[in-house]
């Protein structure tokens, strides 16, 4: 066994334990060290992961974990997203008793997410998923003394536990049907099977369990409440990283293990996709709380991504996979910008409603501009990365087969709907007058730099997406080559 392969995971885990320990032995731990130091080391780890990638596909312990370009791609994404979240929570961290624990849990959740991307075996995937989920259960209810947080946290844990049970049951059925849990063995087992009630139950259970984790309709009920109740940095992390992790697992699972039944099951994903994008975007129009609005908009985004999952049964699944990778990164970056602006406003005013954004352009032009950019990117508007990634995804899905043309058409209309409510927020910021006595909003230098950096990234990605698209394509190719 090549233990060196686990180095990225060890590094992040080690960092997490370091933060835990520091919290115990240094009672008044300098938050600056924790936040800036933690984020800096995470960023260094991300650079290390990218640089040490040799483009080869290595299997650890007979393939329970697979280290290929796809894993590297997601490792880098998760570590960076965790670093961004840590930086974004600098002010939140100063207000809580055990900042080390908070940061350490974020790091542990990143380890879980990394495991989900690399898992080549069902139980490993499940354990990684639980590692992510348990970290998030705690993080989401960190301000548990607040009523709505408390309720949301409880809902999250209970529903999450049920989803996990479904997932495990699905895994059990798959094991019963094929006699193995490794993805490639599952695939060869499944290809010998004809559709049976057992298979349908297995697939339905897996879909329900993972559908919950990525918040696809009709398994989305927890999302708005948890997004609203969680502290804003964690909401951002939930929307960006946790969702991407769910897809990291789902893509490899469907593309490799379930490949023989992908065509048999794709209509379910199409159905979930269409339901998610329609319901998510329509209900978002009605929201007056920005966190809830973003929750529903994220459900809509899941719908677009699920179209990619449905297209995995096509002759050449490389392009749909690349499209999903590209869009999940672009979505993560754009949604991070949006939440960071929200966070900056909330930290000063304690308000997070759509109407509380009124006149933001006068109260802080930079924040208004950044939020506008983020929302346009989420809506898929030209010259932001969201347009390119969404267009890429829709194009490759529509090419996958004539049966996808209608769902893609629906997706385009769903994007239009989303532009309407995003534009509504922009209208509040630029056209509505600020409330009487509303003061200018100050942004700390860290937040300013963070938002500016992310904003430049989503604009740069919109103008010249090629490096990112090529990384996504080689990552996509590596999963299939290794299978």
């Amino acid at each position, binding site marked *: 066994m090549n233990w060196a392969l686990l180095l990225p995971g060890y590094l992040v885990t080690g960092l997490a334990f370091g933060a835990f320990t520091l919290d115990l032995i240094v009672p008044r731990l300098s938050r600056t060290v924790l936040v800036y130091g933690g984020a800096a080391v995470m960023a260094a780890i991300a650079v290390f992961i990218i640089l040490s990638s040799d483009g080869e596909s290595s299997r650890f312990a007979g393939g329970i974990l697979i280290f290929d370009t796809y894993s590297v791609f997601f490792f880098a994404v998760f570590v960076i997203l965790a670093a961004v979240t840590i930086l974004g929570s600098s002010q939140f961290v100063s207000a809580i008793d055990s900042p080390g624990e908070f940061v350490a849990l974020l790091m542990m959740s990143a380890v879980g997410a990394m495991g989900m991307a690399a898992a080549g075996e069902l139980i490993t995937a499940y354990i990684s998923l639980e590692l992510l989920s348990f970290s998030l259960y705690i993080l989401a209810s960190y301000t548990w003394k607040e009523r709505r947080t408390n309720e949301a946290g409880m809902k999250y844990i209970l529903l999450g536990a049920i989803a996990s049970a479904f997932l495990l049951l699905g895994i059990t059925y798959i094991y019963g049907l094929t006699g193995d849990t490794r993805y490639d063995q599952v695939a060869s087992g499944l290809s010998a099977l004809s559709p049976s009630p057992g298979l349908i139950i297995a697939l339905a259970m897996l879909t329900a369990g993972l559908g919950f984790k990525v918040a696809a309709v009709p398994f989305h009920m927890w999302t708005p409440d948890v997004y609203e109740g969680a502290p804003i940095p964690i909401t951002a992390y939930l929307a960006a990283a946790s969702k991407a992790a769910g897809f990291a697992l789902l893509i490899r699972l469907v593309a490799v293990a379930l490949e023989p039944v992908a065509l048999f099951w794709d209509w379910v994903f199409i159905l979930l996709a269409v339901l998610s994008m329609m319901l998510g975007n329509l209900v978002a129009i009605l929201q007056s709380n920005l966190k809830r609005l973003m929750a529903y908009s994220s459900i809509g985004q899941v719908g677009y991504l699920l179209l990619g999952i449905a297209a995995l049964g096509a002759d050449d699944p490389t392009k749909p996979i690349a499209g999903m990778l590209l869009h999940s990164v672009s979505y993560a970056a754009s949604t991070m910008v949006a939440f960071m602006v929200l966070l900056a406003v909330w930290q000063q005013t304690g308000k997070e409603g759509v109407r509380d954004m009124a006149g933001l352009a006068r109260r802080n032009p930079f924040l208004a501009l950044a939020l506008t950019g983020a929302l346009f990117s989420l809506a898929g508007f*030209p010259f932001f990365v969201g347009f390119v990634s969404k267009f890429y995804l829709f194009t490759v899905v529509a090419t996958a087969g*004539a049966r996808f043309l209608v769902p893609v058409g629906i997706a*385009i209309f769903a994007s239009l709907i989303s532009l309407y409510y995003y534009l509504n927020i922009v*209208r509040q910021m630029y056209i509505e007058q600020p409330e009487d006595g509303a003061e200018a909003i100050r942004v700390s230098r860290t937040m300013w730099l963070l938002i500016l950096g992310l904003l430049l990234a989503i604009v740069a990605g919109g103008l010249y997406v090629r490096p990112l*698209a090529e990384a996504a*394509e080689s990552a996509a190719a590596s999963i299939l080559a290794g299978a």
Partner: protein
Amino acid sequence: MQAFDGLITLIVFLPVIGAAAVAIAGREQMLVRRIALGAMILDLLLATYAWLSYSANGPIVEQLGQYGTDPWIPGVNASYLLNIDGLSMPLVFLTVLLGVVAVLGSWHVKERVREYHVWLLLLLTGVQGVFVAGDLLLFFLFWEVELVPMYFLIAMWGSGHREYSAMKFVLYTLFGSAFMLVGVLALRFAIGSFDMSAMTLAGQEDTLRVAFLGLDAIFLMFLAAFAIKLPVWPLHTWLPDAHTDAPTAVSVLLAGVLLKMGGYGLIRINVGMFPGEMEQWAPLLVILSVVSVLYGAAVVFRQTDLKRLVAYSSVSHMGLVLLGVASLGAVSVTGAALQMFAHGTITGLLFLVVGIIYENAHTRHIPDLGGLISRMPVVGAVFVFAGLASLGLPLLSGFAAELMVFLGSFDAYPWQTAFAVLGIVLTAGYILWTVERVLLGPLKERWQSVKDASPADFVAMALLVLPIIIVGVYPALVADVFRDTVTLLVGGG
């Protein structure tokens, strides 16, 4: 003159550079205006240079990377491809010219001047991009990107129900562009790249095949997008609202070039790529165009708001563009293109004059006006001039364009053309009636102190009067350029 590499890119993105300069220019209003004006004048010089280069050496093409091997966005095979051919050249020039006029016409804007100019310049880049895109994805991108500046310009600096009108404009256009996006994707699968020239070639050779939906459906999707933009009756209802509530310079651009995006798309895509379907649907389009001409002209008589009046006259005039396009002859389509150019300058001028009157008199309500010519001789004279150009007075550009449209369409659709000619009679009627009500008659007491045009207004008006006369006297200057490309698209002479 030889076009240098990057000329088109520079023409298209110079306003963006100007916008960036404006954004960091500080709060000094005069400086902001000068930067914007400077950028647009430079752009006008570049566009003139491009035109000279076009006349000497033919179409200009610019591409970064290659389809297939070295695309701009891999995976979807899109490329950064811009070209200026005969159809684009006059429209690009028109856009830049109206850009200069728009900056001059905004001299009286006092509120949030910096933001205003940033949006105005970004809008110009978006519109120019549509006219020069040689890659269908890029075309769609520019088509969409123009919406945002337009929304803000109407919603923030407009008058009346500005937010309603801005949202209506955005929703109508978005609705159309959603259809177009499906069409764009379908063409991409048929061709394998977003190369518009390859699509046109396949369309002309009748080898274009679209899976699943069929060519007719794709044709109609593009048609929907362009018909909303043009606009064609009954999809025109956003236009009067948007025009009425937009600030002057934005109305000028909206009438002058934004509507032309629809006509340009019709000729470039519907005629160029779907000649068979176009022929099949043409009779219906001709009827719609005649309805647009007559309906627009008839409704004008009921208007009491000067801007709304000009807006409905636009619907009527753009009906003639559709008539020319749908008649599908080289002469009629060239006439339609020329009508777009002429209408851009004439209606642009009308909106400018109406804006100046509104700025000085603070009302556009026609019954309240009257006798203004004695206090505003220059504005009054230009109003009369623009009105005469609009009703098609010979030796002015509108006449040449309308004549070409009617000559071209009469063979194919004699009866329909005859009805459309009736629209000209109506136009003459409402223009003269309006001139009488606004400019002539006794001067009302409250208009004693109304001022005439400012120097900036004067220059802006002169910039539009000149091309109306030049093209009117020598239409071939523009028409021949359009014809170069139009004959390639409709085939034959």
